């Protein structure tokens, strides 16, 4: 029984972290049809921002939840203004340019921070489930994922900004005719997507440590989650994370973490063969 509870928490944690690392990418892709291959590096920068802020005496919670998203959000807006905006409508070129950006950021952080892993210890300690102990931080990550997804839902569904965003997403020309300024919406969207990536990177930093090439560890999972989810931002991310996270965690439990990831990829390729439009291309089509 204890084992079942523990496994359930592990599965929930896998789903939550998958949702956290993918949601920034999903927003940028869903709203702007831009595939951001530098996504992993945004997560990495979030981790570094949190660690640098903590080492300057800022409380770990503030560094993770406030400093990291702001820093990476600003970087995101700068990137959008200097690179991405010249490439709208040229999906493949944006992919290539953001890949270049990803290499550049890896090189830059290596030059600044060196090629070593830095870490911060996870706060909150651990708690017991019967005979097992697990980190309380796990529950915090699950909580953050729920809050972030809830906030995105509320923001898109009930606020004026969300309405404008959804309108631009559906038909940018029509929105422009009604007085919206799509380039500004895109810049802000890219910033928000980057900020959420920074938050996710910071929240996961105590678990995994941070090093310049950590983006690689995230990016594959984030991409297949977004592609597996399909066009709808929220329901896509949630359903794909739930599916892939569960498969990953159960395969990890049965074999090793590496083969958990292989199982995740295998499931994703089969899913895309069966549902080329992603889960939300077939189900939950009216979701956000």
């Amino acid at each position, binding site marked *: 029984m204890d084992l079942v509870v523990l496994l359930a928490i592990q599965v929930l944690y896998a789903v939550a972290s998958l949702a956290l690392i993918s949601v920034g990418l999903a927003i940028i892709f869903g709203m702007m049809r831009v595939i951001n291959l530098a996504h992993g590096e945004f997560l990495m920068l979030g981790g570094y921002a949190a660690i640098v802020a903590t080492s300057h005496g800022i409380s770990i919670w503030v560094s993770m939840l406030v400093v990291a998203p702001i820093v990476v959000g600003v970087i995101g807006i700068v990137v959008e203004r200097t690179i991405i905006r010249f490439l709208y409508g040229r999906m493949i070129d944006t992919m290539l340019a953001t890949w*270049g950006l990803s290499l550049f950021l890896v*090189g830059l952080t290596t030059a600044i921070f060196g090629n070593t892993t830095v870490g911060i210890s996870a706060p909150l300690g651990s708690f017991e489930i019967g005979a097992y102990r697990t980190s309380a931080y796990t529950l915090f990550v699950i909580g953050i994922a729920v809050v972030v997804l809830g906030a995105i839902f509320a923001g898109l569904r009930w606020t004026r900004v969300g309405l404008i965003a959804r309108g631009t997403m559906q038909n940018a020309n029509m929105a422009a005719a009604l007085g919206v300024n799509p380039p500004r919406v895109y810049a802000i969207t890219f910033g928000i997507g980057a900020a959420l990536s920074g938050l996710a990177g910071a929240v996961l930093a105590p678990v995994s440590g941070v090093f310049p090439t950590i983006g690689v560890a995230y990016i594959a999972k984030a991409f297949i989650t977004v592609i597996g989810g399909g066009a709808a931002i929220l329901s896509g991310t949630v359903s794909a994370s739930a599916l892939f996270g569960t498969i990953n965690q159960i395969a990890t439990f049965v074999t090793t973490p590496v083969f958990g990831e292989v199982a995740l990829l295998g499931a994703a390729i089969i899913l895309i063969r069966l549902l080329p439009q992603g889960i939300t291309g077939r189900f939950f089509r009216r979701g956000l």
Partner: protein
Amino acid sequence: MNGRSLNLLGLAVVAVVGLTFMFLTPRVVDLDTVLELTIYMIMAILALSLALVWGYGGILCFGQSAFFGLGAYTYAIAMFNMGESTLPVLVAIILPAAFAALLGYFMFYGRISDVYLGVITLTVTLILFNSVNSTAGPEFHIGAARLGGFNGIPGIPPLNWPFNKKAAIDLEAMFYLSTGSLLLTYFGLRLLLASQFGHIIVGIRENERRAELLGYDPRVYKLATFTIGGALAGFAGCLFANWGAFVSPTIFGLAQSAQIIIWVIVGGRGTLIGPVIGCIGIQWLSALLGANQPSGSDLWSKIFANAPLILGVILIAFVLLVPKGLVPTAADIAAFFLRRRRREQRGFEPQQAE
């Protein structure tokens, strides 16, 4: 001069330059340089494989290094188990081709779009990297070959003359083999692209729906192109494993995949000579920046000898400023000046309807 004779002239120039380079180089430069040039030739074969798949087939493959790495690993593992290189070379071509065919089946028959294709091929590469990276323990072995995980496989036996185990080839012969293979690959691909098959895959790249309505099944043609690309990359990987007698999982890494893409972008999509030039140029540049570091300069090693940083800047700059690549852009400029000169010679030229 019309297009056809210009084309033949180009081929003749490549053949003459290529053959001269191949037979003259070992006679005029020292063995170190020959060894260095050999790796350029091997990588140029890899660049050609992506030039076919992406430049002509229009298939955005971000994971060409997956097939390259598979070829290298397959050769290494087969070599340790067999000890005679004829069969391992064949297996190192067939296995990556089969893997490409399987992956291609899922992608092309799932009819996923270009962009997803890029992401999936990239993901496959990363997963291969992670899986092979974690096989360090002694329990991971295939026959007599230990996979070695992140340590890689050292001491891979060299190629030998077919069916003659004793006659291992030396460094100079390796150079002839690599350069010869590059020339053969180049002319083979030119031949392939001049055939009906070549015209059809370019037609599909230009307009898939139209090609389909004309009765060609794009899925079959794309799958065939992708498989040929996988086989070529696998062959390059096999040569690479020979060259350094060593493979490690970084061969599957993101930096390797990015490099191949950068060669093709810099050289130009839709040409074969461009990616070869891009490949050799970029590698030469990286070697130069790494080697010419002033002693004691920390900043230099942080910035100029920092491969990801430099490659990233090159990639961004080319996508934003020279999206067509060097060779097509140079051809455009040459054509512009040629037209202007003709116009000046005639004094007056009626405006042509576009």
